[in-house]
């Protein structure tokens, strides 16, 4: 095996240690190292956004940084935004407004929406569309996703 190093992260509120190769991307550390397979891989050029997570509260495509670069960071994945009792208001809005079909891009969409709503609690349609431009969806045509985010904003205010 190539040299492996340990990287310490706070993932969904829990301190975690994960063994990685120096070249391992954060997304693979999350998926293969920690079993958090809700973070998906849809491309290899950082276009699709399916792997978006929050790193220290900001939406980051987790294929764009090495796991080692995230050392000490707080990482939030789709698994970490709601407990068993109920969905997060953003997730619930996606249910209500049919913001997902196949669901593969959805975790990334949700985390990008969370990032947007943390900065702008009342985004208009144009703002939402621009905020989501790094997350590709092939099923919905985006309109219900935009509606979901608007509804989530209202629910969170």
């Amino acid at each position, binding site marked *: *095996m*190539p040299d492996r190093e340990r990287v310490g992260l706070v993932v969904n509120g829990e301190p975690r240690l994960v063994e990685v*190769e120096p*070249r*391992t991307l954060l997304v*693979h550390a999350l*998926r*293969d190292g920690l079993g*958090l*397979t*809700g*973070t*998906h*891989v*849809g*491309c*290899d*050029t950082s*276009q*699709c956004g*399916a792997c978006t997570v929050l790193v220290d509260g900001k939406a980051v495509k987790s294929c764009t940084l090495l796991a080692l670069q995230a050392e000490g960071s707080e990482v939030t*994945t*789709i*698994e970490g935004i*709601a407990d068993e009792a109920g*969905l997060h208001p953003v*997730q619930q809005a*996606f*249910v*209500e407004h*049919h913001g*997902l*079909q*196949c*669901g*593969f*891009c*959805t*975790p990334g969409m*949700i985390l990008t929406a969370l990032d947007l709503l943390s900065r702008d609690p009342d985004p208009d*349609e144009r703002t*939402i*569309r*621009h905020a*989501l*431009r*790094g*997350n*590709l*969806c*092939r*099923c*919905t*045509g*985006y*309109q*219900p*996703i*935009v509606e979901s985010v608007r509804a989530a904003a209202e629910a969170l205010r």
Partner: protein
Amino acid sequence: MTVVGTPIKRREDEALLRGRGSFVDNLTLPGTAYMAVVRSPYPAARIVSVNLDAARAAEGVIAAFSGADLADEWAGPLPCAWLVTEDTKNPPHYPVAIDVARYQGDPVAVVVAESRALAKDAAELVEVEYEPLPAVADVEQALSDGAPLVHEELGTNECYVWKLETDGIQAAIDAADVVVTRRYRQPRLIPNAIEPRGVLAQVGPTGDVTLWSATQTPHIQRFVLQLVLGIPEAKIRVIAPDVGGGFGSKIQVYGEGPLAIVLARRLGRPVKWTEERSENYLGTIHGRDVVHEVTFAATKEGKITAVRSEAWCAMGAYLELVTPGIPLLGAWLYSGPYEIPNYSVTFTGVFTNTTPTDAYRGAGRPEATYVLERTMDALARELGMDPVELRRKNLIREFPHTMASGLTIDSGDYHASLDRLLEVLDLDAVRAEQAARRERGDVKQLGVGFSTYNEMCGLAPSRILGAIRYAVGGWDSATVRFQPLGSVQVVVGTSPHGQGHETTFAQIVADRLGVGVDEVEVLHGDTAISQLGMDTYGSRSLAVGGIALWQATEKVIAKARAIVAHQLEVSEDDLEFADGTFRVKGSPDRSMDIKAAAFAAHAAHNLPDGMEPGLEETATYDPANFSWPGGAHAAVVEVDTETGDTRLVRYVAVDDVGRAINPMIVDGQVHGGLAQGIAAALYEEGVYDAEGNLLTTTMATYLVPSAAELPSFETDRTETAADNPLGVKGVGETGTIASAPAVVNAVVDALSHLGVTDVPLPATPERVWNAIQEVRS
């Protein structure tokens, strides 16, 4: 309570929203090994040698094989199920190329290692000596004299010629007042399901095979795997877990599935392969890539008298599952929703050194609808007639309507859709704004484009499929099973990948059985659970699978009725069934609910003589006809005449998809379809250079639109009932079929006062700008 027709929320959502989807790449078995595929960088090359020594010696590598190493594993080549003529050429196609690589991305070797990264590292160490051969990527060049041959042994690049023609077509064209001929090139489209393909193969101790696959077609996979591997279907289980979109590109039986099974068997370990996106661009089928020449003939009053279409259709380097048949899915749609008495369609299939083409959303029907609707506008210009009026004059008025091409459209009201469209659009206001901008010479000009369309879906009547040489049938199956204590299990032969079948199908069954929608569980996508089925594509799941489900439900009710009649000692005819309860006519206090009948069926203490215990029925449904959705769409675009930049300002879609079981899901299907058709009109193009190198190999160069490029759509519906028990027509492809011509017609309309009559696909700023410069110079 009635749930059919209501937008209940999807039961599929919660797991997906929590990141608990069962996508293949999320599944790993103990001891899983990882496969990487080495692909030809050359569009055409002789494989002189494959040296695997360095790869085999690399860290973590379990095995590495060339195509020649694996040649004995195949019981047969990867089959094509639709050889459209007796003499369609179907050169052998194996999971790994042996002597010659025929497109960029053709697999030439395979490596298995302890991790995905190590497999990729080792794949880099495989040394393949190639002798590059001349290649051809363009359909017209491929048919020219002296063109390089994709398959030398065939002596030609022509795969087939298929023709459908009514008598007297030439005479009709000769006799016409007006004849319009146009050529169109529809480029390659790359489907881009956001989940790439993937497989995980496990071979058990008795040689039984389980394949988890990101596929639309678990039943077809199982069938084809027997042909390729020689393993009896009965020993093969294919599971399509959560599948992240398909759009036609996950119908095919690709080489990686059988390859992973062979390696799992050889190595005694589960083998997993996950496609990378850049690999997907090369190794997963493309759509379109067709050149058309179309002639319309009409009277000077605008009555269309004949349509003749000739098309040259790229097959790519090999025939995938239904490659040659894709154009045929559009073969009856070149007259669309119009009454046109003379008809001629010819398709020439052409091999090129490119990734194989196959079904991409709409499959054949967008191609036909595009040339039809673009030529409608060209004819309107020629006649000096408003494009809406020309359409009105020719729309079919009475149903059922048998077309000149021979098929019968069961239902529709095309005028109603068009009327509603114009109402939502407020065409007069759009035209007034357009006129004002033209008047003041605005840099940003406005255009409005139309597409009135219909489509042939609900694939498909088996007899017709047989007549057009498809290898198997088009029916589907469903099982409805009462559990002893009254919950309902439904097993369907269709296999969803985002369409929400679990929700929609539960609505149908719950309503009919009079049970709660949450009491109905829908199972699918696993050949061990769903033994019979023809899977999901061609807007067939509801229009075919849904009817099978209806029939199975009716059979359950019939059996329950016999049980209740027996136990209440009345005749079956004396029983009414509503809201889940059988009541004796005239004495409504004498009743038994269907759940009690289910328990009685299970206990079997008191059943009619000879009746088998249990309350479970299976039905198969073979449609007598295709289903025929239709409608009217309009696009409004703003074109910057200085830069060519085109923005879609509004999109109005009025569709008749028959009865909507879940209107929320129906709207979602329309939206997604529109986005893909609009993308084809404005953004997406898979580009090969003249030597056959794919230039668009990432999402950075192939422009899948984001939320920022698209507007909110204005959708509405008119409804005529299809000729089936649910009145449903299918909705998966309407948006894609109708939208591309509406958008391009709008772009041309925006520039028509300058003299622009055509803009090639996709209407990128550069192409639009060039079109403007051409007429200005």
